[in-house]
């Protein structure tokens, strides 16, 4: 099947994030990751797909610098990760917005922490609030927004700091199905517009195939990469046509077969 290529370019200059032999054992003895090695190409959206509890969040947090690996290392643009950094931004599954702050302040919060002047950071935040489709909602508070809109604020906040790498942990799992589809389409536009590297955790095979340039299939805990799939689906047709495209359906089917062995 020519639509699926398994090789990932290993050209060093094209790699944004590189995870090298990372093992993570939680205090208490749970081994979440075992000797994991994976590379994320620059400017692409790579999905991490795997059974529940296989360590996707753990991997993402290690890349984010929020967790320390037990052994192994992570490099971003060739530099070792020792903690959170300016070149990475996180989008949280439960949004992690500040309920006491307006949409505008939430979206500008990363810049606020960097000490960017108020008028400047508000201008930048407004641009990204617009980009995620929330123009006109700047002065509302998170509790006045729907789940989908809240996650857009989370995405705007991550985009506003202009990080090269965006880490997204099941960003759409807390929103309803219609919103989710609209969101996936918008995400594709954002990926096209912003020359950024996206690492995207999801439970949904369809979602992964729809939004990703490459998909890393993870084995159950302690996790390693079992396979990397590049779903080269057509992007020039309408979203609904894509979801009916035989190539798209084939890849979904193939991934499902690969994962089913672990579910059963």
């Amino acid at each position, binding site marked *: 099947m020519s639509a699926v290529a398994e090789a990932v370019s290993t050209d060093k200059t094209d790699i944004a994030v590189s995870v090298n032999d990372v093992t993570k054992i939680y205090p208490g003895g749970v081994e979440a990751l075992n000797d994991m090695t994976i590379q994320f190409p620059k400017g692409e959206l790579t999905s991490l797909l795997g059974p529940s509890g296989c360590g996707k969040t753990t991997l993402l947090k290690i890349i984010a610098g929020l967790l320390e690996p037990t052994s192994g290392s992570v490099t971003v643009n060739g530099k070792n990760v020792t903690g959170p950094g300016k070149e990475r931004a996180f989008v949280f599954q439960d949004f992690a917005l*500040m309920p006491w702050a307006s949409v505008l302040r939430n979206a500008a919060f990363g810049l606020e922490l960097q000490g960017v002047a108020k008028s400047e950071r508000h201008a930048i935040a407004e641009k990204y609030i617009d980009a995620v489709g929330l123009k006109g909602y700047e002065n509302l508070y998170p509790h006045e927004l729907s789940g989908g809109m809240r996650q857009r604020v989370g995405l705007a906040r991550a985009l506003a700091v202009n990080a090269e790498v965006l880490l997204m942990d099941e960003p759409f799992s807390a929103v309803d199905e219609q919103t989710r589809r609209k969101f996936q389409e918008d995400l594709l536009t954002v990926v096209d517009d912003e020359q950024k590297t996206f690492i995207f955790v999801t439970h949904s095979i369809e979602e992964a195939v729809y939004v990703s340039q490459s998909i890393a299939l993870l084995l159950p805990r302690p996790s390693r990469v079992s396979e990397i799939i590049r779903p080269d689906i057509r992007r020039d047709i309408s979203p609904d046509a894509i979801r009916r495209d035989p190539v798209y359906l084939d890849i979904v089917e193939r991934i499902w077969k690969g994962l089913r062995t672990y579910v059963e």
Partner: protein
Amino acid sequence: MKLFGIKIPMMASLIMWAIIWEVVGRLELSILLPPFSNIVMRLFEIVPTATFFSAFWITAKCFIIGTGIAILIGIPMGVLMGRSIVFDRMMLPWVNMFLSAPLTALVPVLMTLFGFGTKTIILTTVLFAVWIIVLDARAGVKNITPSLVEMTKSFQANFWQAFTKVYVWAALPEILAGIRLGAIRSVKGVIIGQLLVSVVGFGRLFELYSSNFLMEHMWALLFVLFFFAFLIAEGLGVLERKFEYYAASRN
């Protein structure tokens, strides 16, 4: 309140008790229990006097300064305990001990150290109020959604930013509850402090009235104090409820 299946409003039950008090008072069973109406009359007689006013002023001053200090110490300490395991281990046993300790017994010690003046009263107030404020701020910080803490870290907030821009606000509902409970304890502290020091403020008045068996004056003074304690607790309760919405929207 319900009586014989009929709903009785709060005010009515208070009036009922006042009437019972009046009747018992008029029976002249004890010098300790003068008729209610006499007390009310005495109340209007005492309150406008300069002695009362200066006592009230000292009390208010000690209460405000004491509560203020307790808040300024209590919140940072609680937030720090909530965020740092080491600091928490160091402080928690002491905080818990002081929270349940009979602090009144410490007031004589304070008196020997700080004399028979407002300083001792203010310190007593702080000592009464601060522990619950610490514990509530700590609980508030411990309740912060983990992802909010991760968000703060991932955008590289320094300690001061994390503290002032996120942790204190995220813990605000608990912190406000702590301040309300702390203020109620402050009232106790400021009164007990004055009673034991007994040469300034209401303490002096109580001393004066009780040594002269002026029971009507005693009760009038107590009513005033109860009323203010109630007012403070209710006022802070209203403030607290204003922020309730976001405790619910926190996760």
